[in-house]
C-alpha cells in the first residue's frame, strides 16, 4: 500500500499535511503521536470512511479495520456479528478457520452471548476479529488493546503478530501504550501536527542511551574525536548523549583508556518510550 502526499483539512485546520509512507503485506507498523496528531484521521482515510482529502492511496480495496471504539449491534450475539459481516461481503464464516484466534482471544466461549453483555475489552476483541474477516490484505487498528488488562493485551498482540505472518496481512496499529507497539511492530511512525516527524525501525538488538558528563570541554572534545561505538544524539559544553549497542563496561573502559575523568554517567536501555520522549517532546503526553 502506498500512501502518497495525504493532506486533510477540517475547515481551515490542517489535520494531515502531505503525509507519505508505504506499507507492505506481512508487516506490522506502529503509529504513535499525541491526541490530535492526526492518527485516527489517517486511519479513517486508509479505511475510506473519510473520503474528502488530497493525495492518493494505492491498494485500498481489501482493508479491514477497527477505528476508535468497536461499532457493534448490542442485541446480536458475537457469532451473529461474525456471520453477518462475512455474509454481506458474500462470504461464509467458517468458525474452524478462526477457532485458534477466537480461543487465543478468549472469545470462543462467549460468542453466543449478546454483545451488550460484553465488557469493553471483549467488544474490542470482537472488533479485531471482525476486522480480520473476509481475508483482508491490510488491517487498520486504532488502539486495539483499549480496555484490556495486560495479559489480554499481550495475548491479542501475539495473535495479531501470528495472523500477520501466517496470512500475510499488513497491519497498521496506533496505540498510546508504547510497549504494545514495541512488542509487535517492525517499524514505528511518529506523527505530530499531521506530519511524520520520525520513522524508527524496531530492532531485536538491545540499544542503550548513554549520557556522559565531563569536567571540561576539552575532555568532551577528546572523547568525541575518538569514540566509535555510538551515534551522538546531542551534546553541550561538557556533556554528550549517544546511542550505542556497546555495553556499559566497554564505554567505561574506553573513557579510562583515553585518560578522561567522568563527572557523571547515566545509561538506560533504549525503548520506544524514551525515543518518543526525546524526539516528540512527549513529556506532556503521559504515554
Amino acid at each position, binding site marked *: 500500500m502506498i500512501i502518497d502526499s495525504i493532506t486533510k483539512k477540517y475547515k481551515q485546520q490542517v489535520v494531515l499535511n502531505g503525509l507519505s509512507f508505504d506499507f507492505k503485506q506481512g508487516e506490522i507498523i506502529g503509529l504513535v503521536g499525541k491526541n490530535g496528531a492526526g492518527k485516527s484521521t489517517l486511519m479513517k482515510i486508509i479505511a475510506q470512511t473519510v473520503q*474528502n482529502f488530497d493525495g492518493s492511496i494505492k491498494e485500498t*480495496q481489501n482493508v479491514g479495520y477497527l477505528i476508535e471504539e468497536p*461499532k457493534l449491534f448490542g442485541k446480536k450475539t458475537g457469532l451473529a456479528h461474525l456471520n453477518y*459481516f462475512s*455474509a*454481506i461481503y458474500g462470504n461464509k464464516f467458517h468458525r474452524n478457520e478462526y477457532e485458534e484466534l477466537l480461543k487465543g482471544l478468549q472469545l470462543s466461549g462467549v460468542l453466543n452471548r449478546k454483545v451488550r453483555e460484553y465488557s469493553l475489552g471483549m467488544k474490542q476483541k470482537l472488533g479485531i476479529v471482525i476486522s480480520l474477516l473476509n481475508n483482508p490484505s491490510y488491517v487498520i487498528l486504532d488502539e486495539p488493546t483499549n480496555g484490556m488488562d495486560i495479559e489480554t493485551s499481550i495475548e491479542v498482540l501475539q495473535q495479531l503478530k501470528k495472523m500477520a505472518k501466517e496470512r500475510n496481512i499488513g497491519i497498521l496499529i496506533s496505540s498510546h501504550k508504547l510497549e504494545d507497539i514495541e512488542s509487535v511492530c517492525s517499524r514505528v511512525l511518529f506523527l505530530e501536527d499531521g506530519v511524520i516527524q520520525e520513522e524508527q525501525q524496531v530492532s531485536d538488538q538491545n540499544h542503550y542511551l548513554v549520557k556522559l558528563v565531563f569536567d571540561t570541554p576539552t575532555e568532551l572534545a577528546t572523547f568525541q574525536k575518538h569514540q566509535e561505538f555510538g551515534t551522538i544524539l546531542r551534546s553541550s559544553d561538557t556533556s554528550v548523549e549517544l546511542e550505542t549497542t556497546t555495553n556499559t563496561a566497554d564505554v567505561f573502559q574506553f573513557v579510562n583508556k583515553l585518560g578522561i575523568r567522568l563527572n557523571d554517567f547515566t545509561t538506560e536501555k533504549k525503548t520506544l518510550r524514551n525515543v518518543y520522549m526525546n524526539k516528540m517532546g512527549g513529556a506532556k503526553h503521559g504515554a
Partner: protein
Amino acid sequence: MVLNIKSYVNYNLSELFKNGFLIIGILCALAPAVLVSYLILSDAVAFNIKHVSNFFCMLGMLAAVLHPLYLVNRDYASKTITLINNSQKNRVNYVVANVVIAFFVSLFYASIGALLLIVAKQLGVPGELEASFLFGFLVNVFLLVMTFFLFGYLLILFGMKSGAIYTILTAMLLFFHNILGNIVYNSENTILTGIIENFPGYFYPVMVGSNPLSPLQYSIGVVTLLVLLFLVVRKSKKIEF
C-alpha cells in the same frame, strides 16, 4: 471487499421476517381492514371495497416505510455503518441494497393488500374491483413506500434522530394530509389547491388506497423519487464518520 447486494438483501429481509417486524406490521395493516370488512358484511356500516383498501393503507403504509428504514437507522444508530460505508462502490451498493429491500417490502404489502381486497370482494363487500384499480393500488403502494423511505433515509443521513424521523413520517402519513385536505376543501384559491393536490406529501397518503393517480401526479411522483434517490446516493458518497 465489495458489499454483496444480494447477500445483504437476503440476510436483512430474512431478519425482518425472523424478528417478527414484518408480521407485526402486516397484522397492524390487516386488523383495521378486516374489521371494516366484517362491519360492511354485517351491514353495520355502508362502506365499500375502497374503504377496505383505505383502512389497509392507513397503518400499512407507515409500517411498510418503517421496515426498510429500521435497517438503515439500525446501522447508523449503532455506527456499524462505518464498517460498510468505506469505498465509493460499497456506499452505492449499500443504498441500492436498502432500496431493493424497500422494493420487496412494498411488493409484500401491495400483494397482501391486493389479496385482501380480492378476498373481501369474494365475501361480498360491495364496490367495483377493476383490474385498473388493483394495478393502480400496487403502483401507488410501491411509489409511496419508496418515496417516504428515501425521504426518511435522507433525514438519517442529515443526522436527524430516529424518534424525530418516525414522528415526522407518522405525521405525514396519518395526519398532515388531513390538514392539507381541509385547506383544499375550504380554499377558493385554485393555484394553492392545485399545488397541494400535486404535492406528493398530500396525494400519496390520500390516494394510495383510493384511486390511481393522475398522469401529472405520477410524473411528479417519479421525478420526486429520482431526486430523492439522487440526493441519498450523493450524500452517502460524501458522508464521513
